[in-house]
């Protein structure tokens, strides 16, 4: 009778696990990853591999030798951080810089807070922003996808050719006094179709909107995330830029342009939805999404950086505990007013 187990109810479990959720996210990122290899070639593959492997390695080493805890690399969260970090850098970035980014992401962004579940900021974004500030030149020289180049330029020059992202082009143009429509009509400015398919300059993962949308659908179907955060971000950005565009179409680009460029979708789908650093209640998620949307547009249009998704997410990460405190789920049996404290 010694083998009879006794425990409080419930006696069954759904079988869901951290591993399953994390690997689900990894699978959702595969389409965007494949497209990045297509557009940026072997460099993209090396960048992704370096980021993932160094994230896993740092997690293992820090856990084993510094924290002296059981290794947690099999839960897949380090892989997600690695892929996201790679998604956020240009494919031409020297590999040693990526390794530094991985160290900052895993060491400072995650394990210094106590590991998965306790970090305040999205680790991959911490790494990315660190690199952006420390290596501004390397982090903002964007290779143009090979498919795009071949139409205009001799393929032999691929390695050395870099260009600006659509957002940067736009910002530069506006600062030099051009109107939005005249910038967009320029010969080298990508079309919306290019943006959707990822045929534009930018970091590894942000270019292919269509692959990111595929990942989003996968995660929603598998119930890994809920629709609240991505929808709130996208609608807010669309509404805000839409209003600005209506007021002055010459200085502000249209919503579709903003949605398809600058890693907005990448951030909205894969980074803002990070379990650990996003709010828990549905109401809170909406508030968080709206906050990210507003901040992104503000940074993009009035800030000195052409794109603001990473900063917006990091800033809202800091507000997450506060949002959790003030936006409670709808309680059963409590009139609407009493829901908030």
């Amino acid at each position, binding site marked *: *009778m*010694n*083998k*009879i*187990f*006794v*425990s*409080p109810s419930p006696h069954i479990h759904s079988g869901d696990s951290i591993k399953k959720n994390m690997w689900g996210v990894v699978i959702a990122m595969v389409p965007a990853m494949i497209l990045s290899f297509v557009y940026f070639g072997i460099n993209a593959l090396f960048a992704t591999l370096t980021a993932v492997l160094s994230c896993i390695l740092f997690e293992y080493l820090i856990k084993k030798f510094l924290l002296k805890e059981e290794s947690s690399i099999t839960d897949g969260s380090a892989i997600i951080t690695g892929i996201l970090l790679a998604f956020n850098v240009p494919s031409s970035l020297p590999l040693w810089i990526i390794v530094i980014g991985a160290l900052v992401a895993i060491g400072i962004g995650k394990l210094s807070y106590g590991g998965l579940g306790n970090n305040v900021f999205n680790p991959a974004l911490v790494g990315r922003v660190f690199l952006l500030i420390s290596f501004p030149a390397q982090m903002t020289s964007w290779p143009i996808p090979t498919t795009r180049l071949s139409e205009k330029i001799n393929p032999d020059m691929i390695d050395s050719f870099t260009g600006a992202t659509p957002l940067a082009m736009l910002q530069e143009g506006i600062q030099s006094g051009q109107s939005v429509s005249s910038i967009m009509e320029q010969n080298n400015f990508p079309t919306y179709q290019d943006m959707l398919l990822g045929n534009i300059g930018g970091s590894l993962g942000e270019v292919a909107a269509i692959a990111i949308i595929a990942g989003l659908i996968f995660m929603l179907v598998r119930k890994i995330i809920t629709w609240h955060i991505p929808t709130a971000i996208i609608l807010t950005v669309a509404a805000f830029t839409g209003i600005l565009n209506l007021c002055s179409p010459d200085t502000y680009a249209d919503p579709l342009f903003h949605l398809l460029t600058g890693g907005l979708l990448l951030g909205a789908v894969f980074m803002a939805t990070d379990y650990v650093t996003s709010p828990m209640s549905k109401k809170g998620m909406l508030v968080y999404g709206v906050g990210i949307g507003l901040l992104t547009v503000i940074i993009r249009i009035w800030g000195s950086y052409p794109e603001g998704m990473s900063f917006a997410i990091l800033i809202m990460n800091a507000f997450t505990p506060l949002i959790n405190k003030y936006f409670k789920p709808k309680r059963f049996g409590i009139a609407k007013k009493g829901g908030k404290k």
Partner: protein
Amino acid sequence: MYFTFLLTIISLCAIGIAAAIILYFVAQKFKVDEDPRIDQVEEALPGANCGGCGFPGCRGMAEACVKAEDLDSLFCPVGGTDTMKDVASILGKEVKEQAPKIAVVRCNGTCENRPRKNTYDGALSCAIQSNLYGGETDCQFGCLGCGDCVSACQFDAIHMGENGLPIVDQDTCVACGACVSACPKDIIELRNKGPKDRRVYVACKNEDKGGIAKKACNTACIGCMKCVKECPFDAITVKNNLSYIDPDKCKLCRKCVAVCPTGAIQAVNFPTPTPKPKPKVSVKKDIDKEKAINKTEKKEE
């Protein structure tokens, strides 16, 4: 260039001085009048903030000491009588002597003594296990072994032993009582530390009838009354089939240890008897115990 540095330094200094002046006046304005002795008393207390005195931290205790008419009902178990004397001298009050105490685990139901009948698989918490059922063994009074006492201890003075029971480190235990209130089975008791740390106590809480208790655990108290009859100082009482030794009356003669048929009565920190003279009482060796029992039986005849 140098001018820029200079300007920076001067302006920062100016801001600092201005802020200091503002803070000074604000602090004066919103000053809370407090008995200065509270600070002194708090200084005298150990500062462990363990709550063993019954107040939320040393500050609370200090306030209570200053307010109280006399210090009889207030006691800091961590600092002991010495600390209370210091406190009393600050306040000009009297203090009662109190014997130093220590936490004692009153269960000896190790894996060997008390066979496990099922396996608990819930959250690792004695409180949760105790709410759920009587425990892995047939003894519903004994230690559950999840270590609520260990996590309650702020002094790192109690640990789970290899035999599944908590072990109190008698040098670090300050008798704050945190483990006592954490234990859902009330197994841990604060008892007098005793001269040279010597103590005699019943290491059992089982209130079942003798037969049931013995079946559940080899070393259970079966309420046989032998110790009560043996004790020359009337220190032992049996209630609900369970013997209890009053630590204030007990003179540590260890006669009860000798007569206990199950070894439920523990005597700790006594020197092991030298083998040469008459076989005296030993706690652990059953043979000695049997002999001792025989002896007392003869006496009774």
